[in-house]
């Protein structure tokens, strides 16, 4: 059904850009079990990007877009920052308006889509930097959670304002010397995951983007729970290699080093009771489907 909306008139086929033709031919809109393994065998929902070479944000974008359960009916909301360099090349509708207002935009958007398409799934996913989420936009981040708005908030935590050249942010580590923190940051990294839990999020995960399979799982869970129950929050470490003085090849190692059990990006998860129930139901359904498929396969054999 999804491809119906993007198909090309035969007469115009040859004048469409090749990346659009590729989308129609092999993007995974509508594929029920889409995920990170489609990367490489299908057209991704991201074309080129103009992030720094090797920026982990680009990996994060690719894994997230490959994992959205329902991209054909998903609208994303971005903010100003390095992520806004990527969104113009993303093949789901996305909104950039101002810096820091992403959760307010998403609140209005989700409500409008619910009014206009009652009974149909329209997912809303916010993706913004740490400055946008935690500093300038904190009130709107939290208030959307207090109101139990049904969308997913994803924060690309690179622990600084990358796009304006590496200034101090609320998610920066204490003591880090940066622009506007000339003697080192004086207060602790803001504990947004805990705040998210207390603010009413039903699913909160903090992790790095070193493992695509993990990103697939948490993105799927976050979107499904926000669709059915209420707000969800993912805080993903996407180090700004430029500002912490790493080479293009070193992003992955930086994430691996920071996710060790004793480090600040050790995997952290919170799931509310209703969300646990939903995840259990989803798992049971998956199991049933797999069993049915197996039976079908054995019958066929």
């Amino acid at each position, binding site marked *: 059904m999804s491809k119906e*909306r993007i198909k090309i008139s035969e007469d115009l086929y040859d004048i469409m850009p090749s990346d659009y033709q590729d989308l129609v031919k092999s993007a995974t809109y509508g594929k029920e079990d889409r995920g990170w393994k489609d990367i490489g065998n299908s057209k991704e929902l991201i074309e*080129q990007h103009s992030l720094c070479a090797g920026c982990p944000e680009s990996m994060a974008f690719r894994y997230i877009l490959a994992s959205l359960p329902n991209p*054909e009916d*998903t609208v994303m909301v971005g903010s100003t920052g390095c992520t806004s360099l990527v969104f113009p090349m993303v093949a789901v509708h996305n*909104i950039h308006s101002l810096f820091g207002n992403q959760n*307010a*935009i998403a609140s209005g958007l989700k409500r409008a889509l*619910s009014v206009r*398409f009652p009974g149909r799934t*329209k997912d809303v996913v916010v993706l913004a930097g740490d400055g946008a989420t935690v500093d300038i936009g904190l009130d709107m981040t939290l208030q959307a959670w207090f109101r139990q708005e049904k969308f997913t908030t994803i924060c690309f935590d690179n622990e600084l304002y990358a796009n304006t050249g590496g200034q101090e942010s609320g998610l920066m580590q204490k003591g880090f010397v940066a622009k506007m923190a000339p003697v080192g940051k004086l207060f602790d990294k803001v504990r947004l995951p805990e705040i998210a839990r207390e603010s009413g999020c039903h699913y909160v995960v903090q992790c790095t983007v070193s493992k695509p399979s993990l990103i697939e799982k948490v993105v799927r869970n976050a979107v499904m729970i926000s669709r059915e129950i209420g707000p969800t929050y993912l805080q993903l470490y996407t180090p700004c290699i430029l500002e912490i003085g790493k080479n293009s090849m070193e992003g992955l190692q930086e994430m691996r080093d920071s996710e060790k059990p004793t480090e600040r990006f050790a995997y952290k998860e919170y799931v509310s009771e209703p969300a646990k129930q939903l995840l259990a139901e989803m798992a049971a359904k998956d199991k049933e489907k797999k069993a049915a498929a197996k039976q079908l396969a054995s019958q066929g054999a």
Partner: protein
Amino acid sequence: MADTHSVIGTKNKKGQTFTDTWAMMNDAPRTPSFYTGSEVIKEALRRASCDVMIAYPITPQSEAAALIGELFAEGYIGDYFRGESEFAVMSQCAGAAFGGARVFTTTAGPGTMRAMENFPMWSGARLPIQMIVTCRGINSPLSIQPDTLEIAYLLNTGMLVWHAETAQDFFDWILKGYMVSEEPDVHLPLALCCDGFFVTHTKDVVNLTPADMCLPPYDPYRSPVPCMDMECPPVRMMRDPFVMKSNYISYATHASWQQEVWAAVERSRKHTIKWLNGLIETENTDAEILIVASGTAVSQGREAIRLLEDEGIRCGLVKVKVLRPWPGEEIREATKNAKHIIVPEFNVTGWLAKEIKATIPNSERVHAGPRVCGGMTMPPEIIVSEIKTLLGIHTVSMASRG
């Protein structure tokens, strides 16, 4: 895709009939009703087929915003909630409009200023949101009194800006406003301003259209930009986002889009003239003395004209209804015979007088006043006395009356 014309004559879930707006506003019977301005806003919204209204308390619009909540509870509005600040509310309105909803909100004074960053974004994103501005003071120390200074800040946002005089204007213009805003060659937000308290908190007879008729719904696909609902292809618009490029193509893109927004403001002119029967209204423009005003200063001007007539002094009137697009031609034409142009205003800087001076030849004819602010009323007598002073006629000063 929805075709708005096909729903005309059918009923919504409240039993109201979707009615051709022109017929509803011009031909349908009207019922005189005695209402406050806030109640009039509610009655207009009842008939507006509004999808989403987002509210935040600030005097003097809180009552109207709460009354619209009642409409939501009754099922007339698709969704309604209180946002956390005006900045957030205006972004929430933007999100709802990006998602294809007909959106309504109200604010005033400090709320307008708090939200300001959103307004050029609204027009740049071509979101036909309607925002009622019930003007009040924005100065320090804190004031809740009527004062129209905030309108000056709205004039360069790329929004359409109208200034209502009466509750009747308000009722009609809320409904007509959507018709102008939502035209595909316009598709811009509208700031529909009035003078707080004077209009919102006073009762007046307003002729209402039938409550069982409502506007046709908004069709988000009659838009110059795609609606963000994934119902049409997610075309990747740019290889490189223009924000980061310091090159000619980037500059040219930003420049031409700003020009296009202002061209759309211009294109609203013909629709506005049709719906409001002109951007200005005039009386006796052959007189040598002319009062040019907007908002409730027009009503005070009318009273002053009556007082002057008693003394045998003839004075004409121009009511400026629309500030964006600016009725330059009309004002030039209407003021061409005037020797003295009096511009009474409810703000300290006299923004209307400045606009007029920049528009007409021999601008020394413009007398920027009387101006009151901070909640002061403008007794017609001060307009009279200012005019007499201009004419060299001695008057007793108002202050000496004790």
